[in-house]
């Protein structure tokens, strides 16, 4: 209980100055000061572009074009937001949500049993190494390399410009990564615990459902979030497979705001802000899970 309280107060405090953070046990620590400064710089480096996009969406044209650039809008307005909603951006949000969510869920449904088999079944080591190795290779392949062949295949099959096509493709492209990470997670759970469940009278499926999955739930959840973010941000494949408003996902919609002539930075920025929003929400609310999930599977030696 004390721990959660401490965490809550820490979260509501204002951001401390680097010099304050460098004082440890009443003594000033130069090393720590440097570390904190570097971290602050990194945070600044990451957050400023997001701030810039968000602020640009409510700037007037004069502020947008002003040199030197203005960090605070002098004449905030919502014109760009009105325009972007008029251009039915919510339909794109809906498309992105449907595609990203379903692709994530299906990907997990496929990769959880696959990763389980790769860790728990006594398969010949070479077989596992080859299969998992090949899957890793797919994960490392740049998407653009597969986009064109996939497009040709898709047009032959007549499934271009369908949401389900995107869902299938995203599922396939992420499965390798998911199996890879889940495998590490499964290996962290001792076999004993599952065998105990078998001895207690459970089926293998029951042992996985009642014992294994609840134990790795935090990692499973963070892997799901990661997959969702990958899918949410995906651009290259969508570029080839989206032809109409029916399937247009957010990244494509943002790009579509850039017309041939007369670029309206405000509208593009508003669309960008919408795209970043769910990712930020996910990252902030789940950051504890996210951090644990990324290290949980990898650093199994600890």
């Amino acid at each position, binding site marked *: 209980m004390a721990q959660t309280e401490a965490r809550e107060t820490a979260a509501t405090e204002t951001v401390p100055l680097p010099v304050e953070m460098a004082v440890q046990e009443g003594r000033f620590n130069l090393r720590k000061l440097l570390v904190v400064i570097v971290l602050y710089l990194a945070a600044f480096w990451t957050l400023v572009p997001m701030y810039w996009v968000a602020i640009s969406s409510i700037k007037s044209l004069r502020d947008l074009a002003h040199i030197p650039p203005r960090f605070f809008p002098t004449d905030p307005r919502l014109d760009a937001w009105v325009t972007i909603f008029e251009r039915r951006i919510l339909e794109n949000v809906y498309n992105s949500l449907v595609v990203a969510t379903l692709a994530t869920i299906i990907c997990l449904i496929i990769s959880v049993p696959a990763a389980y088999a790769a860790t728990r079944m006594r398969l010949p080591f070479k077989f596992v190494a080859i299969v998992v190795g090949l899957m890793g290779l797919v994960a490392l392949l740049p998407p653009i390399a597969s986009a064109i062949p996939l497009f040709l295949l898709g047009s032959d099959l007549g499934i271009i410009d369908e949401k389900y096509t995107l869902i299938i493709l995203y599922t396939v492209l992420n499965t390798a990564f998911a199996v890879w990470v889940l495998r590490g997670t499964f290996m962290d759970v*001792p076999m*004993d*615990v599952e*065998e*105990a*469940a*078998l*001895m*207690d*009278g*459970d*089926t293998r499926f*029951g042992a996985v459902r009642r*014992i294994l999955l*609840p*134990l790795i739930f935090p990692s499973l959840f963070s892997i799901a979030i990661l997959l969702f973010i990958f899918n949410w941000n995906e651009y290259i494949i969508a570029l080839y497979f989206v032809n109409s408003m029916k399937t247009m996902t957010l990244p494509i919609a943002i790009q579509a705001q850039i017309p041939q002539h007369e670029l309206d930075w405000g509208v593009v920025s508003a669309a960008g802000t919408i795209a970043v929003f769910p990712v930020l929400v996910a990252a902030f609310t789940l950051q504890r899970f996210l951090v644990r999930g990324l290290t949980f599977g990898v650093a199994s030696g600890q």
Partner: protein
Amino acid sequence: MAEVRIEGLTKYFGDTCAVNQLNLVVNDGDLVVLLGPSGCGKTTTMRCVAGLERPTYGDIYIGETRVNDLEPRERDVALVFQSYALYPHFTAFDNIAYPLRLRKTPKDEIERRVRDVAEMLGITHTLERPPGLCSGGEQQRIALGRAIVREPVVFLMDEPLSNIDALLRVYMRAEIKRLQHELGTTMIYVTHDQVEGMTMADQIAVMNQGTLQQLGTPTEIYDMPANNFVARFVGSTPMNFIPGALQKENGKTVHKSDQFVIPVSTEMADRAAELCPGGVCTLGVRPEEIRFSMDDEGTNQARVFLLEPLGSETILDIEKEGLLLKVKDVAATQVREGDVLSLSFNRFHLFDDETGAAIR
């Protein structure tokens, strides 16, 4: 309640033979200890009985049923793991209740049986806690509770005491034995600790390199080891071994080594002539079976080079021409380091050097 019958059990992992042609009958209600060094196949044997491993060859019967092709859950066997393997995301209560819930036991009955078992094991106060917040001894008892609560036909224990501290271990082994007696359930208990094996077992099965070396009561195993492996493995102060050969001297058979000449009874000599015609054999004698006197007469003399006081007794380390012997003496020993003792060998065993088998 049931007997467990293992017939010709053989288990290969790849090319490695973990268990080789094992035959073993565990009588209904007995506590049988599988004893052996690590890698001797005792855990594999137990896992085959549990159903977590499939035998390569051979049959396993529980009661009258051949269980080779049955899943663990169909065998009605409970297993306590070395690591306890408790479910960390459940409370102790839910851990113990888990096997009952899987059997769709009515809720009030689960409540009653879990509480009964917890009381029997003295862990009622831990029931609402997750195992992570319980001490090692409490976790051990929770694991026992989970095995006991569903009243299985056979208990399997895989070194359940090796992770708790030495003092608690002494209490727990008595407690497990008492529980087993009270419940009357057949138990197979795996350990590499010969003291645990000796104190708990009705029958001990000593294993080495996948084969059964000897099956017998603790007394039989201790007093009449079937071969030099069993003799070496059992006994907290190990048996002394004196390599040599049988010879005739003045019409009597003696075991003659570089260090000692030890007379052998005619009965034993006859058996040896039959079983070990070459006569090359090693004499094994337990530390408490060596008598000594302080006078410096007699043929078998040796010098004490170290005393090991153990409180309740003293071990005399004796050396003669490169051969080391350990001899038990009372705590208040009169012997001092450097003394020369004259030794006599009370009860001893002869082991054929070629086969390692005992001559008797």
